[in-house]
């Protein structure tokens, strides 16, 4: 079985190489194949609750290759979302703690320094633990993750209604992503545009002419041209929506609109100096991020570099205090805000929202779930991430809207080419979007295979049961098989294979030992004693 044919760039997946020894050394990751974007090894995440320790993840391994979509399937409480949050360290602490494991993102171990963050002491024999956290180290780790979150790994969440801040407008929230990850080039473009004197009048005339004829493609083309001339692509978006307005009649009105759009290009001295300072701060932030990434790659802290960058940042910030004065603040922020607004509109356009300017200036509660999910996707793509984690992106949506979003994700996949970790409980969604599938059960990865292979030839009894229990809209005569019992309590999970109490093929050994992950077919691995393939040490 080869991987999905829809990806020409994707060669049939290579045989996993035996690289376990290399993976265990301190520096870690350099040896991992260059194709692998994200490599998660032996991830364990526990939650310390009053009732006991919930072993939510118990040694999860997964790999995502460039441009690939990996589907992660499982039932509620199997740990698929915990996996996603553990990768970006978004587990709420307390109660959750990542206990051990490595998350290698292009060779940097995101969990570096984990063992020093907390100490555990069992209270008597109660199964309860006293945790002494080193808040300094945890804070440091969270700062390190700021370098990764959003810029290298973006996340889309399940409930778009809840995932956007209700008190800020949509453009504000997208703009925040943009400021965090794209500020220096934006400011460069703005500064350059304000000094350069391109031959605009001629293009403006053509634009007015096109608008008079209501010739949408031409308006689009000319405004794009103006965008290129000024170096501000957002200006093209702004002009397009300004002159497209059907209420505008006559050259004069259109001309006035165009001039209104152009008015934000020239900047006052105060605005320029403000933008330059913002740029310096953003650059220092990026330096800090680079330092953090190197730290995670090399496994040793660079306190001097960090402190230096942070001190310089603080100095610049201190010098910029004057810009926060009420009147000045409004004046200096205006150009950047409108630039961010129109960039956000451009992003919303790219996720095929019909009236992006209107959506950008609304509050989340004014929009429908499908629309908000598009906004979330636009926000996630604002920084060109290496990996997009989509945590049940369509679960809260209606089927027709789900179809729209899936269509959008497919289109983006072929256009942007980021790797996607798609988490869902819906095998239908997996079958439509994913290239490879991992099945999780009770905190463990039990089967991984290319999507066709998995659906055609499921090996693990749980996967088989799962596939058999889905009612099919296209197959009326299918008898619904159910898996007896329910998902185990992860405070006291069954010993050995966690599926054995529900497994129709349970053997005595299943109760005693944890089944190893074995390779059964090319890139098809399974963790079950029924199979005796080569052990996957990876």
């Amino acid at each position, binding site marked *: 079985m080869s991987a999905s044919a829809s990806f020409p760039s994707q060669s049939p997946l290579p045989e996993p190489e035996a690289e376990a020894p290399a993976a265990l050394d301190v520096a870690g990751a350099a040896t991992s194949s260059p194709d692998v974007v994200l490599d998660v090894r032996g991830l364990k995440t526990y939650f310390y609750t009053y009732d006991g320790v919930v072993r939510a993840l118990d040694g999860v391994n997964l790999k995502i290759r460039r441009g690939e979509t990996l589907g992660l399937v499982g039932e509620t409480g199997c740990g698929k979302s915990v996996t996603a949050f553990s990768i*970006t360290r*978004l587990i*709420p602490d307390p109660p959750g703690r990542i206990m051990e494991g490595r998350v290698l993102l292009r060779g940097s171990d995101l969990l570096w320094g984990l063992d020093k963050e907390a100490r555990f002491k069992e209270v008597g024999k109660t199964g309860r633990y006293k945790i002494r956290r080193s*808040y300094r180290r945890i*804070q440091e780790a*969270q*700062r390190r993750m*700021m*370098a*990764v*979150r*959003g*810029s290298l790994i*973006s*996340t889309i*969440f*399940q*409930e778009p209604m*809840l*995932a*956007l*801040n*209700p*008190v*800020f407008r949509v453009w504000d929230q997208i703009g*925040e*992503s943009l400021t*965090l*990850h794209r500020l220096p080039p934006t400011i460069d473009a703005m500064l350059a545009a304000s000094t350069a004197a391109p031959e605009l009048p001629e293009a403006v005339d053509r634009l007015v002419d096109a608008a008079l004829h209501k010739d949408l493609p031409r308006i689009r083309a000319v405004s794009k041209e103006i965008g290129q001339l000024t170096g501000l692509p957002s200006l093209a978006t702004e002009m397009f929506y300004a002159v497209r307005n059907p209420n505008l009649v006559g050259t004069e009105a259109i001309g006035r609109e165009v001039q209104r759009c152009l008015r934000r290009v020239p900047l006052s001295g105060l605005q320029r100096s403000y933008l330059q300072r913002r740029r310096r701060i953003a650059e220092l932030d990026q330096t800090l991020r680079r330092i953090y990434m190197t730290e995670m790659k090399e496994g040793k802290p660079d306190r001097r570099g960090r402190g230096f960058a942070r001190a310089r940042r603080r100095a610049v910030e201190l010098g910029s205090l004057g810009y926060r004065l009420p009147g000045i603040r409004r004046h200096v922020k205006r150009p950047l805000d409108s630039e961010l607004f129109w960039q956000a509109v451009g992003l919303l356009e790219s996720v095929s929202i019909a009236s992006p300017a209107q959506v950008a200036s609304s*509050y989340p*509660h004014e929009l429908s779930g499908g629309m908000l999910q598009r906004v*979330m996707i636009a*926000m996630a793509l604002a*920084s060109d991430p290496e990996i997009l984690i989509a945590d049940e992106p369509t679960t809260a949506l209606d089927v027709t809207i789900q179809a729209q979003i899936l269509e959008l994700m497919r289109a983006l996949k072929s256009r942007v080419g980021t790797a996607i970790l798609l988490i869902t409980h819906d095998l239908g969604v997996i079958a439509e979007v994913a290239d490879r599938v991992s099945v999780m059960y009770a905190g463990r990865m039990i089967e991984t295979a290319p999507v066709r292979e998995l659906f055609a030839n499921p090996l693990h009894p749980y996967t088989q049961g799962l596939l058999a229990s889905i009612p099919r809209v296209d197959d009326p005569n299918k008898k619904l098989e159910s898996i007896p019992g329910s998902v185990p309590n992860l405070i006291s999970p069954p010993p050995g294979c966690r599926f054995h109490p529900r497994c129709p093929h349970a053997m005595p050994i299943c109760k005693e030992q944890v089944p190893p992950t074995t390779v059964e077919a090319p890139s098809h691995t399974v963790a079950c004693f029924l199979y005796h393939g080569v052990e996957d040490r990876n």
Partner: protein
Amino acid sequence: MQLWVYVVRRLLLLIPILIGVLTILFGIISALPLTDRIAAELGTGHGGRPITPQIPCTNTTASAPIPSVSSNTSLTTPASTSALCTNPDWQPALDKLGFNLPIPVQWAIYVYNGLTFNWGHTAPGSFMSNLIGEEGKSLPVTTVLSWYLPFTIQLALLSLLFILVLSIPLGNYSAVFRNRPLDQGTRIMSFSGYALASFLLASLVLIAAVELLGGATATVCGSSVFNLVYGSWPFQLSTCYPVTSYPWVGTHVFAPTSPTGFPIVDSLIHGQWSLALSVFSRLILPALSIAYLSVAGILRYVRNSMLEVMNQDYIRTARAKGVPESSVIRKHAGRNSLTVTVAVLGLTFAAFIGGFPVIEEVFGLDGIGKVLIWSILPNYDYGMIFGTTILFTIIVVVANVMVDVIQAYLDPRIRLG
């Protein structure tokens, strides 16, 4: 919904609430003996019990339709209202006040008077009149209140500022650093704020200030509790500025009260910086005491709602975007805690404003709270007491409208409902 529609709607709702409040007060005041009511309306008599006797109608002289002061009639023989009302000599007064009309009409008159700021008169025999220096004279309640109101507003604004400055960061960070020393500290502080009576807290603050600051006791000049604890005033008068100048007091150095009526503002307008500073310095301790009492109540809500917000999906989204933690707390969650603070402040505003009489009495500040005490002691001046109550209630109602508008501004979802 547009914000302005919401504001207008909220303002319209103000009227029925005011009518309702006046109805309650009408119900209460109806329980008073008729003599006291007449006295309160017209500004006659000494005020209420125990000095004002219950005068049966038959005892009155023909020449004086409403006796202002009367002989020491027995306290123990309350006149029946019916006897009082049938006496023809009382008729002019009763007619004038409308006390002969059916109850609903009386109610309507009361509400109308209330809404048109016609709140009766002070009792000429009361402490208030002595204070004014013109014994035996009666003034409209609204006039007296209008002299003292600016000072109370000043104090209220300063304490609101303290509340916001204290409760938001403390609430936020005690939620963020949950169960760590800062949180435990604020928790203890919040509990003790709940458990301390306002007069005890204020007295303790005052005593502590005198003990610790010593000479800087200009801050407590004129306080009855100070006088009680430290005996007679031991300091030179020149260090003890009365904070306001009212028409009837003429002996001290005053802060001017025109053109705005706000002593600090007026002092500044007149260029008297030191005076403004002195008035301001007198406000700090009382404002802090009031703020402490309110913050104790607010903190718990801010903390709990902050805990809830920090577990919201959109906070996770912000973190997943790469927003620095400080910005997550300040920008994304902070807006919420501001909303909650304002909301809880709105809910507890009645309690907040109800603390003013006590605080003003303890610290010797001349605001409308002090007016209330003057009208309680030594005998009840009903006109003033009810007038003060209406004024306090109006402040609460207006503040609630403002709170709602601010909330609607802060959280666009509220405008929907």
